[in-house]
């Protein structure tokens, strides 16, 4: 009997040797005359177990990992016996996966990302099919009623954005997908693009129907070559099968998508800088208004949304607004794919409804640090997010609760640091990163970031006789950047800087803060 074996093609799996595992598997199976069917699926997002190899069994999929090419002869010899030391049991029963609520990532890791048949067999294109039966206002209504907010980080209600584009008349409108996922500690956009690209294509197609746009662009980071390749192939397949083009599923509606490669500027994740870049210019932030929804790409009304926002639209349309809205807490409805990264034992993707605590995420899912040392700080929400100490780990993960702590949820990245971290150096890095990546349009960001690096250098060196004055100056500079910057690049760089200073003052040569629990190892 032919054995079906799954070896992921996700780039983190590849970075851990999945191609060598797949090659060894085929060579060994051929050598022994064991018939196998190799499927290159997406990743389940349990990255500490990658390469995670699965086999299909009558009782469901069985997981083995992390698998090396050296394990392959033994695995084939025993026909992937559950007694093999690499066997993890039924994939769906692995607690890390079982405790998740996968809505957007329902298919990710299960299917072959480039198999349209797989996609359709796992509820794919049900959202588009329903959208084709609705009028545009009804589609927008579904997205608005679901309570979906922008998953890129700004958390602006997606339905409100779409309603504005729908209400603005123009000969040409656009849907732009912001896939410039530059936040350190995040990879959920990358996973969607590599591991379930049809979902993003479907979401953009629905957005096009909703607002009357016929053209879409996906602006993808140049650091993601595998995502770009997967999207290009998936767009080709969708077009060949009538899911994209001038007559989508014989509806008479038209929608086309083009992938555009970014060029390594972090600020182009800011929506107006992204639009400038797509138009062929330097990625310089635009002043708002006008909003992109009114005057966006090439001056036309434009829906610009993050990958996860758009990828969540198909399930909202397929299952209805109420289904999605029933997940979550307060004004944060639905689920968020959190990403556990940095010095973490079990790094990976955790999709859960809003409302779990940071502690559950970093301890119950993440298992603490990879180094085995105590966690000292967790940065939530990317390079522009705050560093939180253990005393704040009971914070509920929703947009408002984080905001109340002077923090942000951002794109859902959670980066762990052990007690070896020097928080003054992390604060310096935040300013340095802003100096490297500032687009230069506004002064607080362009000049402030460089002055910030110099100030923190003076504080770190400890030879300033008036450290209190330097700290006051740093706070003053941060206030100027927060209130005077044109966009989040300069406006939010103070989050990591001030949170490091407030929660870890001892690293800046000041007395210890009362806010911090004495959990730091000696």
């Amino acid at each position: 009997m032919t054995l079906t074996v799954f070896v992921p093609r996700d780039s983190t799996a590849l970075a851990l040797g999945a191609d060598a595992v797949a090659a060894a598997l085929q060579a060994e199976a051929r050598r022994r005359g064991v018939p196998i069917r190799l499927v290159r699926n997406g990743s389940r997002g349990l990255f500490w177990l990658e390469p995670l190899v699965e086999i299909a069994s009558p009782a469901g999929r069985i997981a083995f990992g992390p698998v090396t090419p050296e394990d392959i002869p033994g695995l084939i010899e025993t026909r992937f016996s559950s007694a093999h030391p690499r066997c993890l049991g039924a994939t769906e029963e692995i607690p890390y996966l079982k405790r998740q609520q996968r809505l957007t990532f329902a298919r990710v890791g299960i299917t072959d990302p480039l198999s349209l048949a797989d996609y359709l067999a796992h509820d794919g294109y049900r959202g588009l099919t329903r959208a084709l039966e609705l009028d545009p206002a009804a589609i927008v209504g579904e997205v608005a009623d679901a309570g979906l907010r922008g998953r890129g980080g700004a958390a602006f209600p997606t339905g409100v954005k779409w309603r504005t584009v729908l209400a603005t008349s123009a000969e040409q409108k656009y849907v732009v997908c912001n896939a410039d996922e530059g936040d350190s500690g995040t990879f959920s956009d990358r996973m969607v693009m590599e591991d379930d690209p049809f979902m993003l294509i479907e979401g953009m197609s629905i957005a096009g129907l909703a607002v009357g746009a016929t053209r879409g662009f996906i602006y993808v980071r140049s650091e993601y070559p595998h995502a770009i390749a997967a999207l290009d192939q998936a767009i080709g397949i969708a077009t060949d099968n009538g899911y994209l083009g001038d007559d989508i599923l014989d509806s008479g509606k038209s929608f086309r998508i083009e992938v555009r490669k970014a060029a390594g500027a972090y600020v182009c994740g800011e929506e107006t800088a992204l639009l400038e870049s797509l138009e062929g210019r330097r990625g310089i932030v635009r002043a708002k208004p006008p909003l992109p929804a009114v005057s966006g790409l090439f001056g036309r009304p434009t829906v610009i949304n993050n990958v996860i926002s758009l990828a969540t639209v198909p399930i909202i349309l397929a299952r209805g607004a109420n289904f999605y809205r029933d997940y979550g807490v307060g004004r944060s409805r639905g689920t968020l794919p959190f990403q556990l990264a940095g010095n973490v034992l079990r790094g990976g993707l955790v999709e859960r409804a809003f409302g779990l605590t940071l502690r559950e995420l970093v301890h119950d899912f993440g298992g603490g640090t990879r180094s085995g040392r105590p966690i000292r700080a967790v940065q939530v929400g990317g390079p522009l997010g705050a560093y939180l100490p253990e005393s704040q780990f009971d914070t509920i993960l929703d947009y408002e609760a984080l905001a109340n702590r002077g923090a942000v949820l951002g794109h859902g990245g959670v980066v762990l640091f052990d007690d070896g971290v020097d928080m003054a150096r992390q604060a310096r890095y935040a300013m340095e990163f802003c100096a490297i990546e500032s687009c230069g349009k506004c002064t607080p960001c362009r000049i402030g970031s460089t002055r910030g690096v110099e100030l923190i250098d003076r504080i770190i060196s400890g030879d300033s006789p008036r450290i209190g004055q330097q700290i006051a100056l740093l706070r003053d500079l941060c206030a100027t950047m927060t209130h005077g910057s044109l966009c989040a690049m300069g406006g939010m760089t103070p989050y990591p800087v001030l949170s490091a200073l407030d929660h870890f003052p001892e690293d800046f040569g000041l007395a210890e803060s009362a806010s911090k629990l004495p959990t730091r190892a000696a």
Partner: protein
Amino acid sequence: MSAKLAAVEHIKAIIEQWRTAPGALLPILHGIQDQLGHVPAAAVPLIAAALKLSRAEVHGVISFYHHFRQQPPGRHVVRICRAEACQAVGAEALAAHAQVALGCDFHHTGEDGEYRLEPVYCLGQCARGPAVMIDDEPHALVTPARFDALTAATRGGK
């Protein structure tokens, strides 16, 4: 045909392929760099004329984006992630090691012309850092020893 002339022909073909597309400048620059390894100065006036831009505008775009190079790289490009998630697991030590091992600073090419060393701020491999990309291939859990093994394996090949 000399290498320089051949390069100009490539550049002209890439410009021709994109010139009528909306927002053509970045795709053209990517096309040239993918083909030639960098965007040579000779490309600037050709692009400017085709897109009805000034040479200063084209140069401004090339110099704005970290991805575009105006000088040929080594045979391979090594990009080391220096962002927070990788910092948390030793990226700075790896960066220091790489500069010694390759014999060059960041944004430079070693004397043997083999590797150009570039910093990168996130490769999306943050669950299993430190991450490195050699040409277009990502590598995770890169210790200094693994870095040496990876660069030794790539050295000389293409």
